[in-house]
């Protein structure tokens, strides 16, 4: 039984279609990331769930209740924006208490109850004692945590995060990433986060929804998204990927220029179908012995030192398209990899992804 169920959601802005036929189920307590480039519709989808932008067609159910036509103030969610949207003229305590004062529950509205809840939340976000400060006296990360506290103060069933970390600098971002995830796990609150940062999505999410051009490209765990991308778009958007134009030659072989590569995954495609064969740079190995499938000769054209590993640009015999490979520093030392070096490569066939060309 899903907590949030979205069915056939569509959204048009005049001629422009922002969402085309989105269907999605989210389980209770799950941390879901909407991942995609800007303009892919992820924020539109979030705002439709919040009721801030009404969808053109389709329905949304939350906890068994049809909320499709409800205005935002009759839905059950808390929201945090990229800009924090803290009220600058109110203190931290007043910001957090903003929604509590309007609660329909008289017990929650009580002065003591509010003070207590505010203190509790400040404790939770590690800002105890900041009650009387103004937002501008806090750092960006602290402001974001206050915004988070304000959003969960009224104990909503759903937490929506709209690019919450994008405005922060890199170090704070990594730190806050862990904190938000931990807080979410402690509270067990169903959470949706919109982000364009794949690293953020991979580290935080239980489930990633990759979007592009108003459609969902793939839904899956971070491992699934990375290791088994469902489309060329997902493969290129998450992580780095080599793409090679090629043809299907028979059930488990493709032809790239003058070279044949064995693969696992093109069984259902007809011969001579134009395809894109993809492989991640870190999946290309230096060959020393072992099985002889997909063994290639290459020379190193460019070499880039990146600290923990090195990235080599390769000219492969029989393939006229550039290939990029990542080698660990151990490999680099053991095999003397440098600009101009000749070497043998091994491309594991179960690591090859084959995507039909959009043509």
């Amino acid at each position, binding site marked *: 039984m899903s907590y949030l169920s979205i069915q056939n959601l569509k959204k048009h802005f005049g001629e422009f279609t922002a969402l085309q036929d989105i269907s999605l189920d989210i389980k209770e307590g799950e941390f879901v990331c909407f991942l995609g480039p800007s303009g892919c519709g992820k924020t539109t989808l979030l705002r439709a769930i919040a009721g801030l932008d009404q969808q053109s067609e389709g329905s949304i159910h939350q906890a068994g209740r049809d909320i499709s036509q409800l205005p935002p103030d009759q839905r059950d969610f808390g929201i945090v*924006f990229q800009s924090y949207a803290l009220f600058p003229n109110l203190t931290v305590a007043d910001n957090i208490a903003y929604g509590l004062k309007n609660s329909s529950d008289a017990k929650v509205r009580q002065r003591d109850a509010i003070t207590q809840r505010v203190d509790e939340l400040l404790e939770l976000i590690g800002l105890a004692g900041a009650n009387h400060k103004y937002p501008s006296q806090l750092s960006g990360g602290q402001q974001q945590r206050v915004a988070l506290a304000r959003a969960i103060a009224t104990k909503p069933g759903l937490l929506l995060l709209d690019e919450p970390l994008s405005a922060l600098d890199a170090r704070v971002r990594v730190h806050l990433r862990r904190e938000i995830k931990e807080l979410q796990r402690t509270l067990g609150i169903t959470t949706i986060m919109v982000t364009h940062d794949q690293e953020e999505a991979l580290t935080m999410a239980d489930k990633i929804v990759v979007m592009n051009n108003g459609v969902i490209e793939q839904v899956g765990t971070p491992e699934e998204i990375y290791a088994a991308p469902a489309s060329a778009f997902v493969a290129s958007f998450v992580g780095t990927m080599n793409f090679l134009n090629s043809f299907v030659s028979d059930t488990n072989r493709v032809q790239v220029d003058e070279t044949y590569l064995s693969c696992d995954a093109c069984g259902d495609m007809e011969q001579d179908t134009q395809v894109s064969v993809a492989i991640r740079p870190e999946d290309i190995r230096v060959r020393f012995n072992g099985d002889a499938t997909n063994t290639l000769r290459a020379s190193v054209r460019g070499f880039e030192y990146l600290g923990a590993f090195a990235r080599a640009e390769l000219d492969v015999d029989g393939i006229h398209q550039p290939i990029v490979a990542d080698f660990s520093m151990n490999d680099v030392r053991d095999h003397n990899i440098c600009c101009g070096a000749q070497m043998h490569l091994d491309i594991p066939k179960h690591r090859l992804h084959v995507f039909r060309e959009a043509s």
Partner: protein
Amino acid sequence: MSSRSIAMNAVGGASRRFLHKDQWVQAAGLLIAAAFLLVAMVLPLYAILSKSVQNKAGDFVGLENFIAYASSPSLFDSVLNSLFIASLTTVIVITLALLAAYALTRSCMPFKGVIRLLMMGPIFAPSLLPAISLVYLFGNQGFLKSWLFGESIYGPIGIVISLSFWCFPHALMILITALSNTDARLYESAKALRTSGWRTFFTVTLPSIKYGLISASFVVFTLVITDFGAPKVIGGQYDVLATDIYKQVIGQQNFQMGAVVSVILLLPAMLAFAADRWVQKKQVALVTSRAQPYRAEPNRRKDVSMLALCLPIIAIVIGVLGTAVYASFVTFWPYNLSLSLNNYQFDLMDGGGWDAYFNSIEMAFYTALFGSFLIFTNAYLVEKVQGMRALRGLVHLFAMIPLAVPGLVLGLAYIFFFNAPNNPLNSLYGTMGILVICTIAHYYTVCHLTSITALKQIDKEFEAVSASLKVPFYQTFLRVTLPLCLPALLEVGIYLFVNAVNTVSAVVFLYSANTTLASVSILNMDDAGDIAPAAAMGVLLMLTCMGVKLLHWLLSRQLINNTQAWRKA
């Protein structure tokens, strides 16, 4: 389609669901805003347009009135006169204001603050005041009459000088803003490429203030062509469009011809308005947020010559305003130069007496109070409400119209609309209420734009956050938005006050025996030959505005200290 059905469509089209409570309140607010602007601006304008194509009996006659107008040489001359005066004044004002603004922003000359303050002086006086001063200086008994080499100040010379004087601060403000918005890195690049100062001016400075210059030119042009005070006082036999309307309506009771001249006066003002809008659109992308502000470096030769350029301007400001102040205290110019307060005994003169002064203060106070809240609330609804696109667009469009409508046209339009016997609002005619409504409408646009700008600077997600916390929008409006915009609100209030005190053009058609206004009484006293009391009243209004401005400055400082602690944090 009538605006009412547009409004209904807008509400209906925003969503297919039931409107919930917040949206009802917002829709009602927007409808009230649209209704106010409809009654205070759109319908009166319609009335004047239809009047211009009717004969005295009220029958439709097409363009007959316009043909009659064009074939009357004396009337048509005013068109040329108006265009000539406006063009010449614009050239003079823009040249001087550019020099002054450049000196104020791009040099390190001493006393910048004082110089800037003095240069803004004319903005606090009605346009009648410099004209009266010029009469004292260069009129038949003026002590500098010989400076004119036998030419008369009564006519184009007088009009151009008074209006140049009066429009100068308006242009100065725009050009200072334009010059302050320039990216310093462009100058550093020019320097690194060893570009000469003059070449830098023509290749960097001028292009970057291009839009400011165009905008200032249109503002001055419109102010001049629609001004009525200065040509009335010092124009002599030299007719311009603005005085023609007055003469046709007040002098000859020829309302149709008044309407025709009004429509003609609308054309250049609307042209200027359209051009200004175009310029504003172009300007948006000019300065990026990453621009570095320009800081002038001390340069003795440049600073001294800039100061030397500014001194004559200041001398003229002090001279003209000082003459008016001095003349207002002189017992009987030029025969008895002893000082007295005789001229301030307004109750002994025609024109409304001290009552007129207090009426003006009352009118300005109400205009500032109601106007600022009304305009700000409307601007909030236009800027922050979700959905209801068409209705919000309509209110915004209505709010932009007043900028293109000269005061005299508006005043005359009010006569046609509110004085019509079948209008249920007829009872407003002749009251303080109509003066306040008319003045709010007259100065609506600038206040609207100021409010919109202030609102745009506030995080656009506040409304979404409060909805998610189940707090109604109006609570957030009162607790957050309004306090955040308090400085802008005060700014709007003071702008309305100063303009309401000094305006002549719109209200000259609308005051009654019980609601005479000080600015109108200046006109009437001047007409009756009581020029010294007219000067005295003008000085009084100027000092009142300066006093209120000072009060505003103190008040906003206090308010910022007391309620805006978060700003300093």
